[in-house]
């Protein structure tokens, strides 16, 4: 997970932001409770979004309690408390994806960084083992994603869609897990909700992969690393429009799929993420990308 799925605070109401922040803090607390207080450092916005989606589906609304930040006792926080597995699932996804990301980093980094990663690896491995015992399907999905990603990148005929599929499939499977694990609110039906969420997850995953690739474009071009926008199928002119079109397309599909779900308690925050925040994040990356490309060309 890469932390691209955030909310746009300027366009949220105060109560909406509080509700979101309450989920963020609750996930941090859950990581501390299920794994270790240090696991709070791997908390990501993507997993917070996943937790919010899960809580949005739940029959009973979460209860918001006052508390203090675990890392700063002077700061007051709201904590969303839920009887469902929503936070526990999101915490498991956080530690499992952090572990595999670490393995990937060890593989790709220079020696001095590799030493640091190796030092923290046993902690991550322990958390991952614990999470995998509870939710083996999450561990299987994330591991499968990395394996498929490697084989897609090695394929000489790799296309953008092939490269984006492993991340998209993983998030799709993660979202499809929710209706089975959480008692759904009225009038949601399990099979229908599963299909919708699976599609939302697929296109959000695709968007995350592509926005990360756009972010890394210049770095990969210099270092010769794999990037789906550097494939021969990508157009040589109008690259910026091509990238923007691909990102918009993934977001549109996620929005169209989400639109089929009956609105829940966090609808306005989820719409803020899909319609405002993601667009702003991708625009920022594309505009910086423009400057960088011009600089390297000059």
């Amino acid at each position: 997970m890469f932390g691209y799925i955030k909310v746009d605070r300027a366009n949220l109401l105060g109560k909406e932001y509080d509700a979101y922040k309450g989920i963020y803090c609750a996930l941090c607390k859950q990581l501390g409770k299920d794994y270790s207080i240090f696991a709070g450092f791997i908390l990501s916005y993507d997993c917070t979004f996943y937790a919010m989606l899960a809580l949005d589906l739940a029959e009973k609304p979460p209860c918001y309690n006052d508390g203090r930040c675990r890392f700063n006792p002077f700061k007051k926080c709201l904590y969303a408390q839920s009887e469902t597995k929503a936070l526990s699932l999101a915490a498991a996804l956080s530690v499992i994806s952090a572990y595999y990301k670490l393995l990937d980093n060890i593989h790709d980094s220079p020696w001095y960084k590799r030493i640091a990663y190796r030092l923290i690896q046993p902690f991550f491995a322990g958390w991952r083992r614990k999470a995998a015992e509870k939710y083996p399907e999450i561990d299987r999905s994330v591991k499968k994603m990395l394996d498929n990603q490697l084989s897609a990148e090695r394929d000489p005929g790799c296309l953008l869609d092939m490269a984006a599929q492993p991340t998209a499939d993983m998030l799709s499977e993660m979202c499809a897990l929710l209706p089975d694990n959480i008692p759904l609110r009225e009038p949601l039906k399990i099979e229908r909700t599963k299909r919708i969420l699976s599609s939302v997850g697929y296109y959000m995953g695709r968007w995350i992969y592509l926005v990360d690739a756009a972010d890394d474009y210049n770095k990969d071009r210099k270092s010769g690393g794999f990037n789906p926008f550097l494939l021969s199928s990508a157009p040589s002119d109008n690259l910026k429009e091509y990238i923007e079109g691909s990102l918009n397309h993934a977001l549109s599909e996620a929005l169209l799929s989400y639109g089929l779900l009956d609105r829940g308690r966090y609808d306005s925050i989820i719409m803020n993420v899909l319609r405002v925040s993601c667009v702003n994040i991708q625009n920022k990356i594309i505009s910086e990308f423009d400057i960088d490309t011009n600089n390297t060309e000059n």
Partner: protein
Amino acid sequence: MKNPYEVLGVSENATDEEIKTAYRNLAKKYHPDNYNDSPLADLAEEKMKEINEAYDSICDMRRNGSSSRSSTGSYGTNSSYTRTSYPDVRKYITEGRLDDALELLNGVPEGSRSAEWYFLMGMVFSRKGWSEQAYNYFQRAYQMEPNNPEFSAAFNNMNARRAYTNPGYNTDTTGMGCSTCDICTGLMCADCLCSCCGGRSC
């Protein structure tokens, strides 16, 4: 059956005009054309049916039991294919058997691949989630037969998604811009403040 007012997202005291607007917005949002190439097409169709029924029943209730009016004519599905060279492929796509559809399509020799072949390849890839490939195939189908309404609708839909302007979702009005509404509200606020000081902004 669900409360028809809830389905349309309006209060029971809403005016006929408000109900009509809500219905039109929802119909735009869930129009089958928007979901034609999506694996969730059947769910969108159900949703559309629900909205049509809700609108009809509100109209009936308000007319005090007068004869029922069908609204499905304007926003119905148009899934009847009259002329097609690939009826089996279309059947497989509707049933979600994408691999079978792809196998049949790949069996067509390169020389005899028509615009419809490219369109159907686009449909298969779109439903599979391979948007980039789907876009290329729809574009090719449209270039070969720009006057075919089915191909041009698919291509235009793709272009709307690539610009993030989905009908019914108001995606084009978001962002950092300032809409006419914002300007009006701003002027009204300015007017109130000016009135407090004894003057008028306009």
